[in-house]
C-alpha cells in the first residue's frame, strides 16, 4: 500500500466519522463539529494529491486548501451564530425539537 | 581542533560532542542525540531565567512600591526562588471533587507545551536556532494561539464560577490582542520579504550613519515595536492587562483551583511565554543577536540577545509596578478601537518608508504618519468621557 493510498484511506475514515456524527447526534453544535471534520478530511485529500501527484510546482492543492480553511472558518462562525440565535428562540439545541417554521 | 570562538562556542561544543559519539552510536540514535543537545540547553537556560526573574520582579516591584521585596531567604533574599520551588513541590495537590479530573490534569500540560515549543524558532545567537523553518514566524503565532485553549480548559474544568469567568475574560483578551500583535509584525515581514526569523535578523545588519539598521530606529518600526510590546503584555496577561488573574478581583482567575506543582506549572508557562514573545520582539525589531555598534562586536552574539532580553524584562516589571489595572471594557476598547487602526496605519507607513528615497523627507513624512493618527485617535476616543485630572500622592 503506497503512502498516497494510506492518506486517502485516512481521509475516508475521517469523512465517514464526521458524516456519522452529523447524521446521528442530537446536539446542533456536534453536528457542526462533524461538518468541520468532513471539510478537514477533504483538505487532507487535496494535500495528499498535491504531494504525490503530477505538477506539484503548480501549488494548486496548497492554494485550494488555504482558501478552504478560510471558508470553513467563516462557515463555522456563521453556523454557530445561527445556533445561538435559534437557541434563544427554542431554548434548546436538540435538532429533533427544531421542527416548526413558526417564529 | 578548530580555534575556540567565544561567539560560536556552544555550536562548537555541540559539534565536538557529536563527533565524540559518532563512532560509537548508530545514525538514528545520533540524530536523536543531536536534537536533545539543541533542546536541553534551551529548557535549562530559560527555566533558570524564570527563577531569576521571579526574584527580580518581587524585589523590583517592592522597591517601586516603596518597600523591600523578599529579604529573608539568603543574602538580600536572592535564594527566594529555591524556597518557592521547594514549597510548590511539597504542597498538597488538591483537586475539587466536582472538577473534571482529566481536563483539570491536562490543562497545565497543554499550557506548558506551546510555551516551550515556540523557542524552537528563535535565533538566540549567530547560527544558534533550533529549527530554521521557512515559515518560522507563522509557526510562532500558530503555537501561541494553541495555548488559549489550555487557558479555557483550566477555567472550565474547575467548575468554579470565578475560574470560568476569569478564563472567558482571558480568552477574549488574548484573542483580541492577537490581531494588533500579528499586524505589527506583518509590516516587518512586508519589508524583509520573508517569514523566517533568521533572515529577518540578517536583514537588520549594517549601519545607516550613526544608528544601526535595526527596525526600531525607523518611525514605523518604533510604532510597531510599541504596539508589539503592548500586545505582548496583554497576551501574557500581565499588568496592566492582568484582569483575568487579578488577585483582588477574581481570587486567582482561571487557576483558582490549582495548587502545588500545577500552579507552579502555570506560573512557569506564563513567564516562559513572556520570554518567548520578548525574544520575538528582539528578533523582529531590535536586531536579534547583533551588536549596536561594530566596535562592540567582540561581545558574543548570544550575550547581546540575553542583554536585550533582560532589558525588556525590566521594562515589563517597570510597567507592572507603575500602571493601574485596566477594566475589561477599557481593555477591549483599547484593542479594537485604538491599537487595530494604528497597526493598520503602521502597515501603510512602512510601505511609504520603503518607496521613498532615503533622507530627511522620508523621516518627516513617516514620522507625521505615525504621530498624527496617534494623537488624533487618542484625543478623539477620549473626547466623550470626562476624566479627572491625575493627582499624584507620595508616601511620606
Amino acid at each position: 500500500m503506497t503512502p498516497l493510498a494510506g492518506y486517502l484511506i485516512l481521509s475516508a475514515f475521517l469523512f465517514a466519522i464526521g458524516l456519522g456524527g452529523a447524521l446521528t447526534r442530537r446536539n446542533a453544535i456536534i453536528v457542526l463539529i462533524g461538518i468541520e471534520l468532513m471539510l478537514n478530511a477533504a483538505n487532507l485529500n487535496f494535500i495528499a494529491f498535491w504531494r504525490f501527484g503530477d505538477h506539484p510546482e503548480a501549488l494548486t492543492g496548497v492554494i485550494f486548501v488555504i482558501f478552504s480553511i478560510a471558508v470553513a472558518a467563516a462557515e463555522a462562525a456563521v453556523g454557530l451564530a445561527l445556533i445561538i440565535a435559534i437557541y434563544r428562540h427554542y431554548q434548546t439545541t436538540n435538532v429533533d425539537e427544531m421542527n416548526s417554521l413558526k417564529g | 581542533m578548530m580555534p575556540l570562538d567565544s561567539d560560536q562556542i556552544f555550536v562548537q561544543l555541540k559539534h565536538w560532542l557529536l563527533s565524540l559519539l559518532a563512532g560509537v552510536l548508530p545514525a538514528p540514535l545520533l540524530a536523536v542525540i543531536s536534537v536533545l543537545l539543541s533542546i536541553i540547553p534551551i529548557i535549562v537556560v530559560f527555566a533558570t531565567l524564570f527563577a531569576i526573574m521571579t526574584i527580580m520582579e518581587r524585589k523590583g516591584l517592592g522597591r517601586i512600591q516603596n518597600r523591600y521585596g523578599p529579604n529573608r531567604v539568603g543574602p538580600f533574599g536572592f535564594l527566594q526562588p529555591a524556597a518557592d520551588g521547594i514549597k510548590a513541590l511539597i504542597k498538597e495537590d488538591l483537586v475539587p471533587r466536582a472538577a473534571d479530573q482529566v481536563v483539570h490534569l491536562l490543562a497545565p500540560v497543554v499550557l506548558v507545551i506551546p510555551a516551550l515549543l515556540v523557542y524552537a524558532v528563535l535565533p538566540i545567537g549567530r547560527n544558534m536556532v533550533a529549527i530554521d523553518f521557512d515559515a518560522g514566524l507563522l509557526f510562532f503565532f500558530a503555537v501561541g494561539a494553541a495555548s488559549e485553549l489550555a487557558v479555557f480548559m483550566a477555567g472550565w474544568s474547575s467548575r468554579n464560577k470565578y475560574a470560568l469567568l476569569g478564563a472567558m475574560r482571558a480568552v477574549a483578551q488574548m484573542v483580541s490582542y492577537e490581531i494588533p500583535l500579528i499586524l505589527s509584525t506583518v509590516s516587518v515581514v512586508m519589508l524583509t520579504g520573508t517569514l523566517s526569523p533568521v533572515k529577518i535578523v540578517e536583514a537588520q545588519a549594517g549601519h545607516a550613519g550613526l544608528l544601526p539598521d535595526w527596525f526600531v530606529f525607523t518611525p514605523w518600526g518604533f510604532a510597531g515595536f510599541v504596539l508589539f510590546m503592548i500586545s505582548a503584555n496583554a497576551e501574557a496577561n500581565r499588568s496592566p492587562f492582568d484582569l483575568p488573574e487579578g488577585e483582588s478581583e477574581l481570587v486567582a482567575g482561571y487557576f483558582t483551583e490549582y495548587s502545588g506543582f500545577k500552579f507552579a506549572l502555570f506560573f512557569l508557562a506564563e513567564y516562559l511565554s513572556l520570554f518567548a514573545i520578548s525574544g520575538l520582539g528582539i528578533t523582529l525589531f531590535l536586531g536579534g543577536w547583533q551588536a549596536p555598534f561594530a566596535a562592540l562586536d567582540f561581545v558574543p552574539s548570544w550575550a547581546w540577545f540575553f542583554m536585550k532580553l533582560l532589558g525588556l524584562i525590566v521594562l515589563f516589571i517597570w510597567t507592572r509596578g507603575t500602571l493601574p489595572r485596566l477594566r475589561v471594557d477599557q481593555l477591549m476598547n483599547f484593542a479594537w478601537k485604538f491599537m487595530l487602526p494604528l497597526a493598520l496605519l503602521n502597515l501603510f507607513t512602512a510601505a511609504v518608508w520603503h518607496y521613498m528615497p532615503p533622507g530627511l523627507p522620508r523621516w518627516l513624512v513617516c514620522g507625521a504618519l505615525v504621530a498624527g493618527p496617534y494623537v488624533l485617535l487618542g484625543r478623539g476616543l477620549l473626547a466623550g468621557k470626562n476624566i479627572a485630572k491625575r493627582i499624584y500622592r507620595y508616601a511620606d
Partner: protein
Amino acid sequence: MSLPFLIIAVITIAAAAAAMTLRNLIHCALAVAGAFVGLAAAYLNLSAQFVGFAQVLVYVGAVAILIVFAALLTRGGEPSQAAVFSPPWFAGLGVTLAVLGVLVWAVIRSFLIRRELVPAPEAAVKQIGDALMHKYVLPLEVVGLLLTAALIGAVIIALKEERKK
C-alpha cells in the same frame, strides 16, 4: 507504511471518534481540537509547512475556541441527561458505513495508488505568495469579501435584539 504516518493516523482517528461519541459537549470540542492538531501533523508530514501552521492557527486557535464559546452560551456545559444519539441512529450508521465502503473501494481499486514515491515538492512561502498575488488574486479578493460578509453576518445574527414587547 512509515511509523510517523501510523502514529498520526491512529491519533487523528481516535480523536475524531471520541469527538463524535462523547456525551459531554466540551469534551467533544476538545477532542476535535486534538483531531485538528493530528491533521496539522499530517500536513507537515506531507511537507506542506504553510498549510500545517495555518491549520493550527485557524482551526485550533479560532474554530475550536468558537465552538467552546458557543457551547457555553447555549448551556452545553452540563452533560445532558437525555440520549446522546437520535432514535433513528441505525439509519445514519448504515449510510456512514456505505459511504466508507464506497470510498475505500474506490481508493483500493484505483490505478493511482500504484504510483511510486516521488521526492517532496517545494512549497516555499514565497512561491505561495507569488501564486496568490498573480494567478489566484481574484479568489483572494473574493475570499476577503466573503470573510467580511461572514463577520458582519455572524455578529448581526447573534446580536441580542432589543425588542419592545
